């Protein structure tokens, strides 16, 4: 089974400014998205996430490199028929209703009317917009536009769904709904590639990730492989003791209201803190070990570049 998306050595420069100066955005991007997985594409602002996505969709033409969708050239019409795309900050024809808008796009795929209407109804239900089917898009809130954008990405029941910042601008409940929808795609056998800089969302649902910093892939692979289980430090809150009593065992983050919060960096020091509390009549309120998160890796990689 060919990879859903295979990107090889993508390069792209733009000439920006009044006196055109060449700015290299993509400096040789390569990664693959396997069939049926949820792939997270992350990086800081301006790293080249959106440029990569737009190249895959044929909106931007690369200077070098190839993109294949299920083994076919990304520009072939067959490849496009299997794709669904939701851009960042989507904006659609505001004078159309949700139904008219989806019907227009359905017509571009040549869907028969009956199939079309049925699919529109089920998609609107899926994204939670069924009551707004005949409301003009100009009256939609940002979150609603995002949802209808998701619906239009699915109008052709694509095998590969590409989403650029799908969770941006949504409230926490909305974000959960979208995450659940994405997971459902995976269960239906679809492949999902999405970009985000909300790292918790990526951690929650992605199978594999790639990290792009300053036009280069600095890290890619299974999420589980990248994020180790190693404990970085432990945050211990102790009540009934003075901060000085625990000095030297860890970093004192705060000492207020009779409670001391310590960041302790080694297992032995944690033991010592516990013993100190026990000996001097203090009480351990909480003990929270912190493992390495994606954010830690991310910040580290960005700092390295």
């Amino acid at each position: 089974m060919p990879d859903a998306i295979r990107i090889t050595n993508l390069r792209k420069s733009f000439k920006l400014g009044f006196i055109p100066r060449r700015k290299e955005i993509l400096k040789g991007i390569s990664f693959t998205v396997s069939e049926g997985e949820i792939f997270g594409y992350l990086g800081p602002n301006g790293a080249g996430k959106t440029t990569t996505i737009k190249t895959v969709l044929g909106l931007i033409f690369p200077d070098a490199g190839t993109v294949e969708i299920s083994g076919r050239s990304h520009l072939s019409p067959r490849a496009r028929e299997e794709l669904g795309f939701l851009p960042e900050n989507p904006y659609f024809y505001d004078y159309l209703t949700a139904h008219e808008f989806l019907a227009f796009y359905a017509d571009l795929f040549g869907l028969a009317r009956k199939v079309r209407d049925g699919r529109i109804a089920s998609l609107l239900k899926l994204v939670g917009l069924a009551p707004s089917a005949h409301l003009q898009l100009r009256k939609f809130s940002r979150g609603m536009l995002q949802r209808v954008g998701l619906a239009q990405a699915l109008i052709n029941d694509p095998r590969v769904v590409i989403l650029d910042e799908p969770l941006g601008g949504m409230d926490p409940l909305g974000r959960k709904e979208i995450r659940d929808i994405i997971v459902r795609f995976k269960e239906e056998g679809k492949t999902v590639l999405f970009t985000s800089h909300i790292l918790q969302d990526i951690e929650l649902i992605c199978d594999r990730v790639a990290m792009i910093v300053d036009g280069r892939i600095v890290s890619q692979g299974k999420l589980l492989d990248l994020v180790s289980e190693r404990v970085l430090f432990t945050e211990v809150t102790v009540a009934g003791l003075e901060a000085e009593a625990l000095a030297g065992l860890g970093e004192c983050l705060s000492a207020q209201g009779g409670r001391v919060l310590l960041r302790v960096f080694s297992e032995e020091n944690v033991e010592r803190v516990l013993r100190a509390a026990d000996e001097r009549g203090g009480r351990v309120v909480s003990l929270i070990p912190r493992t390495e998160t994606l954010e830690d890796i991310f910040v580290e990689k960005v700092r390295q570049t």
Partner: protein
Amino acid sequence: MKVGAIALNTFKEAKRDRILYLLFFFAAGAIIFARILAMLTVGDRLKIVKDVGLAAISIFGILMAILMGTGLVYKEIDKKTIYTLLAKPIHRAQFLLGKFLGLVLTLFIMTGLMGLIFLGIVFAHSLRFEGRLLIAVLFIFLELILITAVAILFSSFSTPILSSIFSLSFALIGHLSWGLETLIKKLPSPAARAAARGLYAILPDLENFNFRTEVVYGLPIPPAIYLHATAYGLVYTAFILGLAVLVFRRRDFI
């Protein structure tokens, strides 16, 4: 039919544009004003009505074609509605063609309405239905088709203001090029004459669509010219659209 879907959508968008109705209102106003203006003349009043009416349809039609055409593609790019559209399995040429046809449909309806009002005013004046005037209106419409294609061409790579200026220049040059024909005879050197003749062949000759003199004065029109003028207009339009596709094909949408 994908092009048809885009054309219909463009039509829906165009008919919401307030500029269209503003220009239509002014055109209708001008045609009605023609009747009042005609009262100032000593002599043939109907001629004034016909001249002002046809000029109004022409001027406002061109303004409609330019003002709407230059925004057509630019708006899609600027508002980013084009991203999801081009991600679908359509050729960029189909997109441009759909936009073009949608605007042509809008202009057809507008020109038709203006033409009807014009015929109505002429009828009110002379109590005669002068069907021949429709020939002039039809060829004004053909001119509008060509100008729309030019507006779309510029709209695919330039801002609306610049596109409007370029398109207007095209229209103006199109009405000047017959002057070039007279100039050719006066040039001293054969090389200059050959160059001028070449230029004359390339530059648009929009006077080919100007039948106002014949229609107002009841002069005969040789039937061959109908076919030739129409073919010229359509082929030039196809050429311009081809240029637009060429420009648009490999454009990056940052």
